[in-house]
Each structure stands twice: as structure tokens, then as C-alpha cells.
């Protein structure tokens, strides 16, 4: 039986409107509010509480929780569930995210909406399981083989864990591409006040279903419902639209077409351009004190918090410093960086890794200003003073 999103039932399961909640749990709440009806996962610190929360709450709203044998199976299950009509999600951390990489690409190639919450911990390999990091930011962009566009959000607060999980579902459904919530062990394990948004304040986007005459339906080409849209209509399994789904390069009918260059180029360009053509709409940034700034911190996720504290200390010490916080990290807000680099003398990029997002920042700054990496690894977030010292040029 098809799952019907029931706002009352969801709100009854979530409980009070204002809560003091764990970041990981807020991702579960976000998924439920977005209409997710299928969670498949394998527990891993510091993401286990997402699975735990889904196991506890999903059955109460008629949604499904499955603990899989591993993370490869988990994402495979998400893809199957999505083709069965469900909005599906999983949660993992570094080692599990690595295992998911092949099927992450399969989801891109088959244009399957699904959401992956990555509560990042330190790596490489098993690393520091209980401690946070931001080491998978490039992996979600480039970790699977071939040419893809990534959709990735980075929450800085527990409220954003909820809000951005909803947003990830909306982006994923709209573009028929997997979307990642790139949180981390710091934010995932924080507790803060959250306010569950009212139903009328929620924007919930669902994939566009195939509705045209079944004989005229072509599954892997521009929408046959919306004009000039590169996102195909979704033929849910069981609705009578016979569709062949493969990770092989396929023609517009979905059948393998692996030996001709134009077929591959047409397919992969459409899959990537459906996102890149919307780049101007796909910008989610927060700007703090940038109007008069000659120094900027470009930051995201947990690190934005000590960066904002460092900015406040800097302002008290007469540094004209501001913050550009990337809420949506991928697609990368190229134009924002170009503009910022022309305004300021220096951009400092603090990250809980040895320098990842600093690279696209440097690329789009294009030599217009100095770009400095402010890395920290080892499972601790930067202390505000550690970021502040970069203002002093130390």
C-alpha cells in the first residue's frame, strides 16, 4: 500500500513543537516532515542515533525502517524504495560513506532521488569514531567515478539539521539526484532547542510523476510534462510505465547504449546540466558583517560557529571581518566567491580537515585576493582563538 504523508500522524509522533534535541535526531524529524517513508541503514558512530531515531519513530507513522547488512545494501535499498515511489533516506559516517560511493553514482546515473545523511567523523579509514570532522566534503563531490553534480548541505545548528534534511529531500526530489546532508560529529551530537515548523510554513517538493499516455512515455529525456526541463518525469514502478533502469550508459528509452560517444555525452550532459543550469537558483549562503569587510571567513557546518565567534572578537579589535557561510556547499556558490574576492583583501577558510573547500574558494577567487587555509584535524573543532589568530596574520 502506498505511503501517504499524514501531517497529523507525523506531528503526533514528533511530539512537542519546541524541544531540546540532538542534532542526529533532528535529521530524523526533518526526514519525517519531508515525507520520507523508508529508512535503510547500518549503525555507525556518530550517526547511530539517526538510525536509532528512525527505528523508533518511523513505524509510528506507517513508514519503514530496515537495518541492512552493510552500507552498500543500505543505499541499494534506498534506490529500490525510491523506484517503488518512496522518499528514502539513510545515515552514515566516513567508512560507510566510502562503501556507498559506487551506488551513489548509480543513483546519479539512474536519476534516483534519495537522501544520505553523513555525520562526518575523522578519517582516513576507521579514524576517530566518536569525534567530528569535515573530511568528506570533497568525497561527496568527487568520490564516485565519472561526471556528476552533487547536492550537499552543511548544517551548523540542530535546527538546521532538521531544516536542511527537508531541503535535501526537496532538492533530491526536484532534480532526481541523490542529496547529502553533510553534518558532522560535533553538530550531530549537540543538543539545542528546535522549533518544529508549522505545516503551512513547510515547503514540500515531490518528484514530477509520469502522467502522459504510456505508449508515448520516454523515461530518460527532458520532462514530457514541464517545458524546457531536463528532469525526466518519474515512472514509479507498478504504475504501468515499463521502464528499464540501468547504470550503463543508456538511450532515452533507458536501454543500454554503451558504444557511441554521442549517446553518453547527451545523457551525462543532461544529468549534470539539470543542476548546473539552475546554479543561480541554487545558492544558499548566510552573510554576516560583510558590507564593510576587507577580510572574510568562508565557512560551513560546525566550523561556522567558532568562525562567527572569532569574527566577533575580531570586530571588537577593529578588524573589518565578516563571514560568508555556505549552507548549500554543492553546487558551489561560484558567483558569491567571485564577488567576495573582488571586495576583500583576504579570505580565510577554516575547516575540520587539511583543506578541502579552500580549493574551490581559491579557484573562484581567481587571484583577486589572498586565500588562506585554516585547517584543524584530530576530532576537535577550532577554538575561536585559533581562527582569530589568522586575522593577526599568525
Amino acid at each position, binding site marked *: 500500500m502506498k505511503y501517504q504523508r499524514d501531517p497529523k500522524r507525523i506531528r503526533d509522533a514528533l511530539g512537542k513543537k*519546541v*524541544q*531540546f534535541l540532538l542534532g542526529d535526531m533532528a535529521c530524523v524529524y526533518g526526514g519525517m516532515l519531508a515525507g520520507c517513508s523508508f529508512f535503510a541503514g547500518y549503525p555507525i558512530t556518530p550517526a547511530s542515533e539517526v538510525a536509532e531515531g528512525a527505528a523508533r519513530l518511523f513505524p509510528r507513522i506507517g513508514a519503514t525502517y530496515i537495518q541492512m547488512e552493510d552500507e552498500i545494501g543500505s543505499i541499494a535499498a534506498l534506490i529500490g524504495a525510491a523506484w517503488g515511489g518512496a522518499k528514502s533516506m539513510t545515515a552514515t559516517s566516513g567508512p560507510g560513506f566510502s562503501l556507498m560511493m559506487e551506488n551513489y553514482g548509480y543513483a546519479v546515473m539512474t536519476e534516483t532521488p534519495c537522501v544520505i545523511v553523513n555525520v562526518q567523523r575523522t578519517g582516513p579509514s576507521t579514524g576517530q*569514531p*566518536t569525534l567530528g570532522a569535515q573530511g568528506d566534503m570533497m568525497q561527496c563531490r568527487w568520490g564516485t567515478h565519472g561526471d556528476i553534480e552533487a547536492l550537499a548541505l552543511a548544517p551548523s545548528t540542530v535546527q538546521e539539521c532538521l531544516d536542511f534534511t527537508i531541503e535535501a529531500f526537496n532538492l533530491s526530489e526536484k532534480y532526481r539526484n541523490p542529496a547529502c546532508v553533510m553534518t558532522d560529529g*560535533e553538530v550531530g*551530537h*549537540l*543538543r*539545542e*532547542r528546535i522549533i518544529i515548523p508549522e505545516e503551512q510554513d513547510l515547503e514540500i517538493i515531490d518528484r514530477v510523476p509520469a502522467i502522459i499516455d504510456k505508449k508515448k512515455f520516454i523515461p530518460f529525456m527532458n520532462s514530457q510534462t514541464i517545458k524546457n526541463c531536463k528532469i525526466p518525469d518519474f515512472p514509479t514502478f507498478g504504475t504501468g510505465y515499463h521502464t528499464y533502469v540501468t547504470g550503463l550508459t543508456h538511450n532515452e528509452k533507458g536501454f543500454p547504449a554503451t558504444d557511441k560517444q554521442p549517446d553518453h555525452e547527451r545523457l551525462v550532459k543532461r544529468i549534470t546540466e539539470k543542476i548546473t543550469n539552475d546554479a543561480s537558483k541554487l545558492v544558499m549562503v548566510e552573510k554576516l558583517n560583510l558590507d564593510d569587510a576587507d577580510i572574510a571567513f568562508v565557512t560551513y557546518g*560546525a566550523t561556522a*560557529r*567558532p568562525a*562567527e*565567534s572569532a569574527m*566577533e572578537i575580531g570586530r571588537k579589535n577593529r578588524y573589518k571581518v565578516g563571514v560568508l557561510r555556505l549552507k548549500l556547499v554543492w553546487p558551489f556558490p561560484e558567483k558569491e566567491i567571485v564577488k567576495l574576492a573582488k571586495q576583500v583583501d583576504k579570505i580565510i577558510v577554516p575547516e575540520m580537515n587539511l583543506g578541502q573547500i579552500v580549493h574551490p574558494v581559491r579557484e573562484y577567487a581567481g587571484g583577486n585576493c589572498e586565500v588562506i587555509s585554516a585547517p584543524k584535524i584530530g576530532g576537535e*573543532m577550532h*577554538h*575561536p582563538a585559533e581562527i582569530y589568530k589568522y586575522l593577526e596574520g599568525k
Partner: protein
Amino acid sequence: MKKEIRICGFGGQGVILAGFIIGKAASVFMDYHAVQSQSYGPEARGGAARSEIIISDEKIGYPRPLGVDCLVAMSQESFDTYRDDITDDTIIIVDPDLVKNHNIGRPLYKVHAQQIAEKLGNKIVTNIVMVGAFTGIFSLLKPEAVKESVIDSVPKRFTELNIKAYEQGFEAGKNAIKEL
């Protein structure tokens, strides 16, 4: 106003629940901003565990404490491990039965939390006794708000036991002030 509170003990004592209750009291049952974080070893039981809460009337940026305004210790190991950054202004609350070596050459508040919990019939509520003592000694949160937070955070069938633990802890805290 910004206050930083650290509650420490051994894993399994409920120091994280204690911090959760205090953070919830401040941010859900009162109008403060609050952040609670924790650190603990890989063990499920034992080892030194700590829960840290920041309470502020402004938005909280950096979510980890920069100092410690109040330290609550429920085990010797955690007291020895987590007090290196205390200052002369830090308010320290210990259970002297669990932190036997608490004589560190300065006054501190002593609350026999575990004894109180045992008299109530279950030492599992030692953490809630300490939440009460903290509320009584560190006059930041409204006692009613913390009580509501306790009720909201414990299993329903244990509500009564936890309310008693909280109230007796609060009284013990007030007495500890007199005894200082």
C-alpha cells in the same frame, strides 16, 4: 550573561541526562539559549564521562565551553580528570561519598546525592538529586522550570521518584550553602 556548566561522573551514572535536563530547562522551559555537548570514552559503563552545558541570553556561537562556572562531580576519576581548568570563581559541587579526595585547598559544596537517592530506594536517581542540588546552589534557573524539565525527561512510571529526588536534592543544595 553566559554560564558554562560541567557535570562529570562515570559512564552510566546519567551525567548526560543531567546536562540534558538542565539545558532543556533553560531553553524550553525558560527563554535562554542553551547548548549541551558531551564527551565520553568508547565504554558503555565506567570511565570518566562529562556533559557540558552553555546557557546564555544571546545566541551561542562556539558550542564548547571556554571556561567552567560550575563543576558538578560524581566520581573521583572524573573529578581528577576534569578540573584542570577551574578558577577561583568556579562553583564546585561534589558528592563527598563518591569523590573522597575532594580536599583541594578551597571550599566546595558537598551534597550526599547517592545517599539521598539510596534512601529514596534507587541510587539510579543520584543524577537527578545532583540536578536539584545544582539548581539550589547555582541560582540561575527557576526551580519550577528545572522540575518541569525533569518530569518531561524521565520515564512516566518513574516521575514520582524523580520529583522526590529533585526536590530533596534542591534542599540538600540549600543546606550545603549554609554548611560552606
